[in-house]
């Protein structure tokens, strides 16, 4: 049911993103960098050629998947802040499968599936704690992120460590088990991400399940009176969101890194920001993830060419999300 009203609701997001970028360039000009040149450099670095676009799109893939996961959870009123940990578990499960199963497409498929299941299971722990012990989901999911990072660190130095290696790294995924390349470094996972975005949108807009998720998220009491099984729907959303985050990790392992090492990632956290910037719209998540990836890639180009710290990209992402939330709050105030 894409109508004008909803389209209008998307526009503040675009305005906010552009506004945030403008604010950033203003800051650059104060710091003595020519903003026009900086903008052009960043743009070329992120979207300037097919090969640059492939880099940006490849970086956007885990953001799309985590963003879809965050949007799904938020839409049903569930604050899953644990996408990061679920993503890490997805990586662990995927690498375990990919380096042990005989090389081939089957290993790749099983690896992705294992990643998704591991992400869902990790989220399931938090949901179980909430349902049986009343532990708030926001707290448990965020704390499980730390546990997941520790677990990953222990595994890559223990059972999953490559034999003969001193570094905390796993063995490398055999070539036959990797995701096929579209245009290096862009891999088939990108197609999967877009398909899942379209499926998410269809489920949300066109299915009974999606409608019930939305109602359960907006007004659980009214949902119960209308006979919607609210507990079941929010469970489905939470597990689905965990599965998407786990899949993000698995896709990254099978398509980009080909091994797992100790250390921090942040696709899970970024996914929440991506979803908020897209105002929880699944197709918007794709654009929003491209924007986030473009900022990161563009900022790296800026650092290389003009010696501007690449943290600027992160600042820009933060500004964009803040601007969108502000625009949303203002729009809500105008309505009432």
């Amino acid at each position: 049911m894409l109508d004008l009203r909803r389209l209008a609701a998307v526009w503040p997001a675009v305005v906010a993103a552009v506004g945030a970028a403008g604010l950033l360039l203003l800051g650059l000009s104060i710091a003595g960098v020519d903003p026009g040149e900086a903008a052009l450099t960043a743009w070329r670095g992120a979207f300037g050629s097919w090969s640059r676009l492939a880099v940006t799109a490849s970086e956007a893939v885990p953001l799309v998947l985590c963003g879809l996961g965050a949007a799904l959870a938020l839409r049903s009123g569930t604050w899953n802040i644990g996408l990061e940990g679920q993503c890490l578990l997805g990586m662990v499960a995927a690498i375990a499968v990919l380096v042990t199963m005989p090389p081939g497409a089957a290993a790749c498929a099983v690896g992705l599936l294992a990643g998704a299941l591991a992400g869902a299971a990790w989220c399931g722990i938090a949901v179980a704690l909430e349902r049986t012990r009343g532990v708030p989901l926001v707290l448990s999911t965020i704390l499980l992120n730390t546990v997941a990072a520790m677990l990953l660190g222990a595994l890559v130095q223990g059972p999953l460590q490559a034999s003969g290696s001193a570094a905390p790294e796993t063995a490398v995924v055999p070539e036959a088990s990797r995701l096929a390349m579209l245009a290096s470094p862009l891999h088939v996972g990108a197609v999967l991400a877009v398909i899942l975005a379209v499926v998410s949108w269809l489920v949300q807009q066109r299915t009974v399940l999606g409608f019930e998720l939305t109602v359960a998220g907006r007004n659980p009491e009214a949902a119960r009176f209308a006979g919607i099984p609210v507990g079941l729907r929010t469970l489905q959303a939470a597990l689905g969101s965990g599965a998407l985050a786990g899949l993000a990790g698995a896709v990254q392992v099978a398509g980009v890194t080909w091994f797992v090492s100790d250390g921090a990632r942040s696709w899970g956290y970024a996914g929440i920001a991506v979803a908020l910037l897209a105002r929880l719209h699944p197709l918007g998540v794709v654009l929003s993830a491209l924007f986030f990836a473009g900022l990161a890639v563009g900022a790296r180009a800026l650092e290389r060419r003009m010696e501007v710290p690449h943290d600027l990209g992160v600042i820009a992402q933060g500004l964009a999300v803040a601007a969108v939330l502000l625009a949303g709050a203002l729009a809500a105030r105008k309505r009432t």
Partner: protein
Amino acid sequence: MLTLSGIHKQFDTAVALDGADLSVTAGTVHGLLGENGAGKSTLMKVLFGLLRPDAGSMTLSGQAYRPHSPRDAAGHGIGMVHQHFTLAPTLSVRDNCVLAAGRGLGLIDQHAWDRRILALGERLSWPLDPDAMVGSLAVGQQQRVEIAKALLAAGVDASGPLTGRMLILDEPTAVLTPPEVEELLPAVRRLAEAGTTVLFISHKLPEVLRICDALTVLRGGRTVYTGQTLGMDAEHLADLMVGAGRPGAAGRGAGAAVDAPVRLSVQALQVPGALHQVTFQVRAGEVVGIAGVDGNGQRELVRAILGLQADATGTIDTPSLPANQRLRGPHRIGVIPDDRQREALVLDLPLSENLALGDHRDSPLACAGWLLPAAWRLHAQDLVHRFGVRVPAGDVLAGALSGGNQQRAVVARALHGGPGLVVAVNPTRGLDIAASADVLGRLASARSLGTGVLLVHHDLDELLGISDRVLVLYGGVLVDSGWPSCERSVIGRLMMGLPAHA
């Protein structure tokens, strides 16, 4: 001490107070009685500065009194204890009192406050610990804090007199256990003996008769009785509160035929602390009214019937249970919940989606799990047209409609398509007379088409006007009043927990 005369207050087109009078003598406990909707709350809000009256005059200690805010009322020495506590559970007793008395900026003298609180506690014979965390106290103790807070905010000081102050207690015993009530009532008397005037609002006649010096009874926004407690009895008061009413008002049906199919059968329904052995049936083509003062188990009864009360035991047999497996046609249950904004509508979704809610998984609005948007639009247009929902333009958000039109939308959703059973809770709440009549008329015509209606309603006039049978809930026990072949006063007595016949 306090005189209110001829107070009028109108909301939109609904008259809440229609010339209410109240005269309270200083240093007495004065009871204020009335059914739900009689105007008690509105009158208290006027007195406490939360609402301005449209007409009428108020005098306090011989001077004209026109409070413009609760703080202003407190400045005149009036404190109010609301039925639902207004305490911050994570703050100490002292901090709650400081918060209530808060007068802008400045330093807080903790020791002075501690002295005040301790001294007041001593005078009321209630030990109060200023450092105790409010959330950790029992309900009865929290209420003492609430009363102390109100008195302190109204300017009672450690040494200052309690005379010239007035305390409004809004159904103070509703939340208390019997032993806590036994502690509260003598304390209220002690307050009065110390010179504080107490306005005591309650539904519980025995309590009122026990501690009040004088009484005022409101009905339909007017004062119908005011005078001394001495010589009054509970039966007489119940009759006064309920009134003679409009006998056989418009719209009673022929009643269900004895062989009409049973649409709802409730057997020995039990909800811990709320319902005891409730048994009744609703047949096709009848309206069964449930009368009762709010909070006597109505909420739990409705939730149990809809499959939302997890701790309910007993048998509830509806054409389809649980509610999330509702079918169409004669097997469908239509629901008009009590609170349209919290339980019925999703305010930030479009009206068309709200009108589809509940039927959204069935044909013709959905097919094999897929929504059919075109059917949703037609469905919305049909309901809007047939039930007279006034919509500003196109498919607006439900939250953009006026309260009356929101209610029409809820009624439309519940009644369209000839449901087998309708469960309606206070379906005319907040509506003006014409809109109320419209809603009741639609319930009546659903009945004549064979729908069984369970009507839980706080407005006794409307309830008696439309119901074929009336059952009364009091303290979780359901009693058949025998209506319509009984006197209206019998229902009033049953609602107050008194025997049906004096």
